[in-house]
């Protein structure tokens, strides 16, 4: 290397970029990178990339991020100029789009973040929205200005939500580069049939892991303080009868009673299947569980029907609750009034639903009553948290009980682990 200082500075800047992308990079890694480059040299780009990747990236996920940052950072001069030119054009276009967004959305009450989404839309899409607004503008102030205003607002809000989903899906591509990670981070509702066995396999793997962790944690928790004579004497035999290590009785662990209320109407079916499978396989999470399925009516599922997905689907069809609408109020009222009572102080009620229901006020009242009867109520929602702001029903229900977003297997695993751990 002709000028070590320049390279150290560049590497230090590269380290900062990696840190900004979420990699845990410290001074040690930068020092290692400097050292290894003196051995590997800078002649071969691929060797440099591999050597730096070995030093900086400490997991498969980090390797993917590293590759992206490296390819953007270490580029030829010509490519850099080209990229800068493209970036400038892009920024200019974005500035114009932001200006348009400010003008178009003046006085509409949309937040700055929503204006950014509007600016990120294609020119055609923005023009389409402007046309709609123009068409209805002349009607504003006539018979019912509030109604037209709300209509325009909802059209714009929907377009922005779609834009946000589009942008988030583009971001999810990184996870999909790795087939092993892909399924973990994808929306459960969008799994193809062929991917379901693989997803089940992943669930089994994760639940085995969580069960193992929980067992180990419980095993290592403090003992009860009472001496276990039998085990102490047995252990003592190894050291010729000297009671070298005392053994204590373990603390008795009390597990939870779970009551699961699963929405099996239309779009919720696939999510409920996966979530149920997950929770059922966590034998360390609860002592006993009862499962209720609902759409317009509610029914209790037996253990046999939950054995596998085919039996589950058949059961849902037989009970005549498949493909119906959703009535959460009725389902919760049933739980509150059924005899013997499914809910009690030692019960955790898990609701698996996307919050869409008929007669929302009745559902809220029933949820409040269920919360009063059960020890804890947790809502697993398959809608990603970033979209909750757009959906009124989510906001209303999340005010009453704890709501956790579980749109992917990864989220679901995290939620189940927290549930079992708490």
């Amino acid at each position, binding site marked *: 290397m002709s000028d070590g200082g320049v390279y150290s500075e560049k590497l230090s800047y590269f380290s900062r970029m990696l840190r900004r992308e979420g990699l*845990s990079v*410290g001074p*040690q890694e930068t020092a*290692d990178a400097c*050292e*290894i480059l003196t*051995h*590997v040299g800078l002649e071969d780009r*691929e*060797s440099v990339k*591999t*050597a730096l*990747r*070995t*030093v900086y*990236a*400490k*997991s*498969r996920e*980090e*390797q993917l991020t590293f590759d992206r940052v490296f390819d953007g950072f270490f580029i030829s001069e010509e490519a850099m100029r080209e990229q800068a030119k493209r970036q400038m054009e892009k920024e200019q276009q974005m500035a114009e789009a932001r200006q348009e967004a400010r003008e178009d959305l003046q006085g509409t009450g949309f937040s700055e973040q929503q204006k950014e989404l509007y600016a990120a839309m294609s020119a055609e899409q923005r023009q389409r929205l402007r046309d709609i607004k123009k068409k209805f503008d002349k009607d504003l102030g006539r018979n019912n200005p509030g109604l037209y205003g709300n209509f325009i607002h909802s059209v714009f809000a929907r377009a922005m939500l779609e834009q946000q989903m589009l942008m988030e899906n583009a971001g999810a591509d990184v996870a999909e580069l790795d087939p*092993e990670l892909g399924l973990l981070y994808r929306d459960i509702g969008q799994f193809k049939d*062929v*991917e379901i*066995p*693989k997803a089940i*396999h992943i669930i089994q*793997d994760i639940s*085995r*892991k969580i069960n*193992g*962790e929980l067992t*180990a944690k419980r095993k*290592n928790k403090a003992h009860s303080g009472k001496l276990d004579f039998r085990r102490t004497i047995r252990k003592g035999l*190894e*050291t*010729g009868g*000297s009671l*070298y290590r005392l053994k204590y009785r373990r603390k008795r662990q009390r597990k939870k009673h779970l009551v699961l209320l699963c929405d099996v109407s239309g779009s919720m079916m696939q999510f409920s299947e996966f979530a149920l499978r997950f929770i059922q396989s966590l034998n360390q999470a609860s002592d006993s569980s009862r499962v209720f399925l609902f759409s317009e009516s509610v029914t209790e599922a037996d253990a046999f029907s939950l054995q596998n997905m085919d039996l589950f689907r058949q059961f849902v069809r037989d009970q005549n609750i498949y493909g119906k609408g959703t009535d959460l109020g009725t389902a919760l009222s049933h739980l509150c009034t059924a005899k013997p009572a499914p809910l009690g102080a030692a019960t955790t009620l898990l609701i698996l639903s996307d919050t869409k229901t008929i007669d929302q006020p009745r559902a809220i009242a029933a949820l409040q009553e269920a919360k009063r009867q059960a020890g804890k109520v947790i809502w697993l929602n398959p809608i990603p948290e970033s979209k909750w702001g757009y959906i009124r029903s989510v906001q209303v229900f999340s005010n009453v009980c704890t709501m956790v977003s579980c749109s992917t297997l990864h989220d679901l695993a995290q939620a189940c682990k927290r549930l079992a751990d708490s």
Partner: protein
Amino acid sequence: MELTELKQELDQANYIYDDTLATTLYVALKLGRPLLIEGAAGVGKTEVAKVMAAALDRELVRMQCYEGLDESKALYEWNYQKQLLSIQVNMSSEDKDALTKSLFSDEYLLERPLLKSIRSRRPVVLLIDEIDKADEEFEAFLLELLSDMQVSIPEVGTIRANTVPFVVLTSNRARPLSEALRRRCAYLYIEYPDVEKELAILRAKLPHVDDRLCHQVALAVAKLRSSEAILKKPSIAESLDWAAALDALGIRELTPDALRQTAGFVLKNAEDLNVFDQEQEEDHACSCGHHDHHCGGHHHV
């Protein structure tokens, strides 16, 4: 050792590698960092440690991790029986302090793999296999060894490494490893080999097997691995077994019948075998226009 020398050594050990693997090994070796290798089961993670031991001409010290593994199995244990016998024999000794001191000396220390690897006079390759199966507590215990190359034994004090071992940790990603452990290691992720690399491995390990058969096996295995429906993807060891079994049965071409008869060597669970049978039936029914028996010998992998 320079990169070219390492490559030569790997060649001599008859190991098939690509530039990424060789560079990563070189980086870990040069920086004196432990190497953490992750990847699906059967991609050759453990083999890397074995090959490095051969390439560096060092002894391989292996520690297999499992749930419940603790210091007494991994690092050291006092030989209690021998200590008790010594107490009985020297009961009448005047100098009690000397007796107590002697009880915690090398004579009564049972070395386990970790201690053995750092007390060795000649540097060794230490393989800590399937670290993801060990408990988190054990992982935390490893940190001192991996970062400072020393271990603490309460009765003896801190033992520093006589020689620095080349440490290889492998993980199947059954559970996420701690950030602290990862930070102390150089990292390598091994994917399943592509057809060319698999073929090169088959040729290197089974030189007596017909090249055409090796090629067909490599293709078939690649297809099985790419299938979403197959849950347990075939490992490199399984493709080697498969090729060897076909050769032992005198099969020179991977026909549909041969595939069906020997699928058990490469697919190891009932669900995968069912999927495989279904795919075979679908292939025969549509792709060639002939039924199984009149298929003219071409294969459908």
